């Protein structure tokens, strides 16, 4: 089984993208043998009230409940956020995604930490997409820098019980700092931005995090799924991962993290 931990549905405002609907995304998943994917609303990130995007997402993915697992977008500095969180739990969302740059708050600030702690109480894992699109080619109105290493480390230290997944990140920077923290909550990393064929970067991630903490994640449809498929092939043929470790990365770690 192959589970993609990081997909989105909807329109991206800053450049052309394809396969924006749930039906198109599932077709794309079929093409690359992705069995299930955790998805959030791309539109919702840019709505004043992110909950509108969360509701849209549930409607959109309703015909594909067996394939698409909903993650809600939460804005910790918007009105009545803890009620939003509770609502999302009741509606069946399986994870929270935070976008501190887009919504204008520090991840290690009091509002975000309150959400991180509430997520732990609700047993909802939190995903932190470091960025949606490569910041080097960004649109002038997209002035968002990636989430920084220190900010994530601080937030993780302030929410010791929260399960956190870092998506689309430069994990050679993140993993060594995060893996040495003593915390009850789990930390996971996707392979979206780690070049596994560059021996050093993947080996560094593997050594720092361990195969128990690495998941398959593509950032599709904004990024090519096939790039991550190449990495899986490399892991099994060249990097020396055994079948059990590979299965953890392909699906088992995600199942555990998202309580699937």
């Amino acid at each position, binding site marked *: 089984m192959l589970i993609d931990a990081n997909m989105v549905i909807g329109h991206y405002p800053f*450049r*052309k*993208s*394809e396969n924006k609907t749930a039906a198109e995304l599932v077709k794309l998943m079929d093409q*690359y043998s992705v069995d299930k994917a955790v998805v959030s609303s791309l539109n919702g990130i840019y709505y004043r009230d992110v909950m509108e995007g969360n509701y849209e997402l549930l409607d959109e993915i309703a015909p594909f409940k067996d394939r698409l697992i909903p993650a809600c977008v939460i804005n910790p500095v918007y009105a009545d956020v803890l009620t939003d969180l509770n609502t999302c739990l009741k509606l069946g969302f399986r994870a929270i995604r935070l976008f501190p740059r887009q919504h204008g708050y520090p991840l290690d600030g009091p509002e975000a930490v309150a959400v991180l702690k509430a997520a732990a109480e609700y047993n909802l894992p939190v995903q932190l997409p470091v960025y949606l*699109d*490569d910041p*080097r*080619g960004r649109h002038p109105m997209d002035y968002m820098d990636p989430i920084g290493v220190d900010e994530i480390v601080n937030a993780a230290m302030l929410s010791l019980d929260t399960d956190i997944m870092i998506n689309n990140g430069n994990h050679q920077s993140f993993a060594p700092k995060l893996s040495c923290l003593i915390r009850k909550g789990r930390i996971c990393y996707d392979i979206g*931005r780690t*070049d*596994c*064929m*560059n021996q050093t970067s993947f080996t560094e991630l593997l050594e720092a995090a361990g195969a128990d903490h690495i998941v398959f994640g593509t*950032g*599709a*449809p*904004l*990024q*090519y*799924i*096939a*790039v*991550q*498929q*190449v*990495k899986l092939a*490399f892991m099994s043929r060249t990097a020396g991962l055994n079948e059990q470790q590979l299965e953890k990365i392909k699906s088992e770690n995600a199942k555990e993290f998202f309580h699937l």
Partner: protein
Amino acid sequence: MAHISGGGDWNWEMKCLKDCKNVFTDISGSVIEAPLVEETVAVFGAERVLFGTDGSFSAGIGKVCGANLTKEQKLTILNNPRFERYLKRGNQVC
């Protein structure tokens, strides 16, 4: 124009150079935004697109494999006859 996936506004770059028929590009670089390769081929034609990685090997290979192009277009990128011309030209200089 090397390195179209090297981090920058590739829409801008392609728009500037699309009419310069003597300008070729390669897809090397760590940017894995879809549909970058399809857009590059749509603007330049596969015959003006070369394969490259800049050390981002899985990105380079994955982008070509994952692009919504015909087999012929992919093979043209991966084995572009333009490479041979460049190599011959280089040998003459040496």
